[in-house]
């Protein structure tokens, strides 16, 4: 089978394809999230040390993972967009940012909620929370730059470059914060000191997959909006709207 992948690099042909793909990601995402949450919140036994409060890590950890992955994905699409001058790639980068920021915020929020019963305070300068906070600032910077530039092409190129520079710095920031944290002997979020039970690990995995699928579905949805917005003068968009009427 010989598929011409480059055909789908054009916004006009990607738009309907993305539309068809969304349910294939969205439906499993919902199913897996429901399964994962039921198992994580109700079926698994409470932790012998932390009691019920440990259950929040089933949201916290996948969200934290996702927020990192999405930043790197943004930089990846930005690089593709720069090298091949492909508009669709830069639209992908733009579409990923809000989802990444939401996961980042979710990780911080759940981290704070977990901190209250565990450390007795909502905020501790723990290495992972601090990295998440800085990452959230980077997402905000990306989105603020994109929003500040009126010309859509300049906005995409400038914020894409920022994402690439940021992605270079993410590992440096991550390790410096880790090091800073061990230096000052701060607290750290770790589920349990003993090795994670297999049942816990599998729930975590289910939730992580759900987060991936959700991110893809939402990003595709957002890319579709972005395509319509940027191509609103193209003939095929006009045809689309007359068909709808």
């Amino acid at each position, binding site marked *: 089978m010989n598929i011409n992948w480059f055909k789908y690099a054009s916004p006009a042909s990607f738009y309907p394809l993305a539309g068809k793909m969304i349910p294939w990601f969205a439906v499993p995402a919902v199913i897996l999230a429901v399964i994962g949450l039921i198992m994580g919140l109700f079926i698994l036994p409470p932790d012998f040390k932390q009691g019920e409060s440990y259950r929040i890590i089933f949201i916290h950890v996948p969200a934290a993972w996702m927020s990192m992955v999405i930043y790197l994905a943004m930089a990846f699409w930005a690089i593709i967009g720069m090298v091949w001058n492909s508009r669709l790639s830069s639209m992908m980068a733009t579409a990923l940012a809000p989802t990444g920021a939401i996961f980042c915020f979710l990780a911080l929020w759940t981290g704070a909620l977990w901190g209250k019963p565990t450390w007795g305070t909502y905020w501790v300068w723990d290495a992972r929370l601090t990295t998440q906070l800085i990452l959230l600032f980077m997402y905000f910077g990306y989105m603020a730059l994109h929003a500040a530039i*009126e*010309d859509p*092409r300049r906005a995409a190129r400038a914020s894409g470059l920022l994402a690439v520079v940021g992605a270079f710095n993410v590992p440096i920031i991550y390790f410096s914060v880790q090091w800073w944290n061990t230096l000052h002997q701060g607290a750290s979020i770790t589920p349990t000191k003993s090795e994670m039970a297999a049942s816990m690990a599998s729930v975590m995995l289910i939730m992580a997959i759900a987060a991936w699928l959700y991110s893809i579905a939402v990003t595709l949805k957002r890319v579709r909006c972005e395509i319509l917005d940027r191509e609103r*003068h193209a003939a095929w968009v006009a045809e689309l709207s007359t068909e709808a009427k």
Partner: protein
Amino acid sequence: MLQVSGLFCERGDRQLLNGLSFTLKPGQLLHVRGANGAGKTSLLRIIAGLLLPTAGDVLWQGKPTQQQREDYHGDLLYLGHLDGVKGDLSCIENLRIDNELLGAEISEASMMAALEKLGLSGFEEVFAKQLSQGQHRRVGLCRLLMSQAKLWVLDEPFNALDVKAVGLLAGLIEVHLERGGMALLTTHQDVPLSTERVSEITLGQV
């Protein structure tokens, strides 16, 4: 030789250039015409490499300009709406920096001569911010005398110039063309040049 092929350009919601193509040969001048907002400045900035077209190519000596940026810029002289003259530097200091940026490598005496030719003798050590608008513009125009560029891209070069300076500039362009140079220019005035070398395109017409 400058070749422009299938150039498209969008600014905001408007389609400015729709597959524009032309070729400019040595000794030719292209007068770009069009109403305000027709995309004259955008076209010139695309050719200068300051603006990326939505689609299409600009070829210099048969090669895309983006693949030979520094070589192409060595052959190019661009004067835009902004003079590119630093107010906090004196006229001669401005020229020294232009000399280096253009890679012209001309002597101090030639720079003085350029200033003199443009009627700025006595102003060498004066800060550019203290000059009148026309004089300020002339400091920028000194580049025409300094550079050995083959391609001149001039956006409204006659603006803010008095009659004498307009004549002088027209003369410079003519000499440049006679030497086998090429030029693109936009102007709302009639081009005071002998017509056999001048061709015209008008933007914004369907």
